[in-house]
């Protein structure tokens, strides 16, 4: 398998190091691959790149997403009804990287987010190899704790893809240090106890926790996700973190745009425009 050698752990970490060197903080939008069709996904990725997204989290949908709230579960169901699978997600990334008549090649960093069974079913090595060959940069598996991740980390080490891990407010100090050491690219901090899609209150306890995460991460970048919907949340989330991850709110916004399309062929363009305006809106939180 050939792979765009520029992408993977080294590329992702260099990008995030540059973000910090520039004294900036960034946005990491999450979208569910195949929601509204794969052409919509490609158009949205390009729009997010143009609008200045620093990393995109691309969700490979699973039938039973226990870590997600109702919005992302509904998006997964819509996407699966259209038959989206691992190969499709790899193909979208490959098209993004290669460029075509509509758009030039893009090097937007991409982290694939999914659940363990989709990778285990294909075989960890083969699944990770496919994503790496397509030009993905990292992978994050919502139901794969560090203790179960030996095989994933081996597959990532062999292909250069970054294995990312999550920390939660329930994670203790020792474990936090272990996860910070194991996570490549960035360390994903769950902002709140709960599933995705419920508003996070960035109160003093939350900020204390995010401060501890940043300290444990050291030179490693930190992304904060779960319940970030508007510029105020972005601003609060970035007090201790490098990246604000925005999922459910964006996915709902894009879905409304797709649903409003008078004809399915218009969906990609409408979703792309919606992605642009949403990201511009969120960007207000970057420079309060």
């Amino acid at each position, binding site marked *: 398998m050939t792979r765009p050698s520029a992408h993977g752990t080294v590329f992702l970490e260099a990008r995030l190091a540059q973000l910090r060197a520039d004294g900036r903080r960034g946005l990491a939008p999450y979208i569910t691959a195949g929601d509204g069709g794969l052409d919509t996904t490609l158009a949205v990725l390009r729009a997010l790149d143009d609008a200045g997204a620093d990393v995109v989290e691309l969700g490979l949908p699973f039938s039973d997403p226990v870590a997600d709230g109702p919005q992302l579960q509904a998006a997964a169901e819509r996407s699966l009804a259209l038959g989206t699978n691992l190969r499709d997600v790899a193909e979208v990334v490959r098209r993004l990287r290669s460029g075509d008549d509509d758009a030039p090649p893009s090097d937007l960093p991409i982290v694939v987010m999914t659940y363990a*069974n*989709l990778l285990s079913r*294909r075989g960890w090595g083969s699944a990770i190899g496919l994503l790496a060959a397509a030009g993905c940069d990292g992978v994050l598996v919502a139901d794969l704790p560090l203790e179960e991740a030996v095989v994933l980390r081996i597959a990532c080490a062999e292909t250069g893809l970054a294995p990312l891990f999550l920390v939660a407010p329930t994670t203790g100090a020792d474990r936090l240090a272990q996860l910070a050491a194991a996570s490549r690219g960035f360390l994903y901090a769950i902002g709140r106890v709960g599933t995705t899609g419920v508003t996070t209150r960035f109160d003093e306890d939350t900020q204390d926790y995010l401060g501890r995460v940043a300290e444990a991460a050291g030179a490693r970048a930190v992304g904060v996700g779960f319940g970030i919907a508007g510029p105020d949340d972005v601003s609060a989330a970035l007090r201790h973190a490098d990246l604000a991850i925005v999922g459910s709110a964006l996915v709902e916004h894009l879905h409304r745009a797709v649903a409003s399309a008078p004809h399915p062929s218009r969906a990609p363009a409408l979703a792309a425009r919606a992605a642009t305006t949403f990201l511009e809106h969120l960007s207000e939180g970057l420079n309060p």
Partner: protein
Amino acid sequence: MKRSLRGVTIKVCGLTDPDEALAAVKAGADAIGLVLHPTSPRAVMPAQARRVSDVVHAMSPSRVRVVAVVVDAEPRAARELAAQIGADAIQLCGDQQPEDWVGFPLPILRRIGVEPSAEAELLAWRPVAALMVLDHPSGPGGSGRPVDHAIASRLCQRAPCLLAGGLGPDDVAAAIARVRPRGVDASSKLEAEPGRKHLGRVTAFIGAARPALARAHGRFGAFGGCFAPETLVPILTELDAAWRQLREDSVFRAELDQLLGDFAGRPTPLWPARRLSEVLGCEVLLKREDLLHTGAHKLNNTLGQVLLAKRLGKRRILAETGAGQHGVATATACAQLGLECVVSMGAVDAARQRANVLRMQLLGARVEVVHAGQRTLKDAVNAAMRAWIADPLGSHYVLGSALGPHPFPSMVADLQQVIGEEARAQSLAAGGLPDLAVACVGGGSNAIGLFRGFLTDDVELVGVEAGGTGPEQGAEHAARFASGAPGILHGCHTFLLQDDDGQVLPTHSISAGLDYPAVGPEHAALRASGRARYTWATDEDALAGFDLLARREGILPALESSHALGWMLRARDELRGRRVVVNLSGRGDKDLDLLQDRHGELERLRERSGALP
């Protein structure tokens, strides 16, 4: 045929004799090591190795791997030697280079000396070796000396490893708890004299290692594990530690025993079902879990877990339910012990088990009806897990079957094994051990509860899954072993009904309690090891089994339990003259609405089965 080393967790090394090798296999070893290094005290000549290998393969054609252990060998010589003795894998010790072994036709185990610099060697071998064997750094082969646990523990994070180094029956459990290896490998400490194994020590070693590995990882062979979102992982770790402590705590045990006895009605009887036996042509003993308070075995589990939750200071209990039996049992335990209770239930199940919805509400529980997905048990589990993720500190999730992330499969089985312990003692008192123990399998808690009582006896164990309208591909059913494949759902690695992409498939069963796409991981392991076998009964088989028990014994069984009876009706020829313990896991009152709709079918099925005159 190339067979992987997946599922290999206990290797007994240095065997020299076919009878001893057979004994090790019978005791439960996954792999047998034959040392082909001439100067080893446990060396075997190739011809003798071939004899050992042949008898092991004859006895266990699919499960046990024969490993050829070589020192300083070249790939070509090793390949010829492995072929000569019929080995399934090769273990490399001594001076070899990983790059020479790329593309070797058999799976490779690599011996790694545990010392501070070992990580580089392990990483170099990782692309070619499927398993590492962690041994003391002295000498090329088995050292018999213990390794540095701290270093070994780090190495186990980097690659799948078997821990070796002079492990014996007395210290293996503690070493596993500290190092958390994939598996263990032992040789010298299991010997009566160099080269001759002491069979008692081999059995004791495997008996100590197997549960220790299960506790360290929640692993049952290749199955189980803890595939939970990070928010829950620390909570599950705490739960695991609490359960390990409390299950040995005499005050906790006494309180639980009193609840199980005077509140729930244990022990439940073992009823010799004579009129049923006449029809089936075998001797049937019914384990009457249907007589337990709330009408099913579920209360054994919920009383234990709610009592545990109370000890942990939780104020709220979450649960999922399919048929409603687990929901009712949870609501009952919460009412008895004074905790708040919220039960998730799929909308389809809430409609077909209305009576149980009302029972839960009358007991003071809140029933959350789930409208997502297929709106059955799987979706109720999703909802309950989400509710737990939202409040992991204040709530405890009482999972209702021997499923989910570690420690649930072990903990639920621990709480349900009272069924098998009683049934064993009762059957002995009633004339002797049974030939078979039979139970229906949804998640599999009633079945594992029964099976655990007979695991070390010469008793055949049979689990009956829901065959729905027929377990062929494409038909609607919940027979995971008939057409499923290994996968990860709701926290554990087990057999799962899924499509080629790994998406979970819809299921169907007449009984809500069996209508679930995954099976408990301990069952997956019992099937893989050949200790239990799994079959299925269709919706119609279950109805016929229900009718039979109602008319011949005056007992209305739950449609779940009716699957076990339905299979026995179909398997009459095989069962003739044998003694069978059947777990009657629940009573059928909850199914009256459904039976009213299908009442007309019972007579037709009765005629067809010819079971009743």
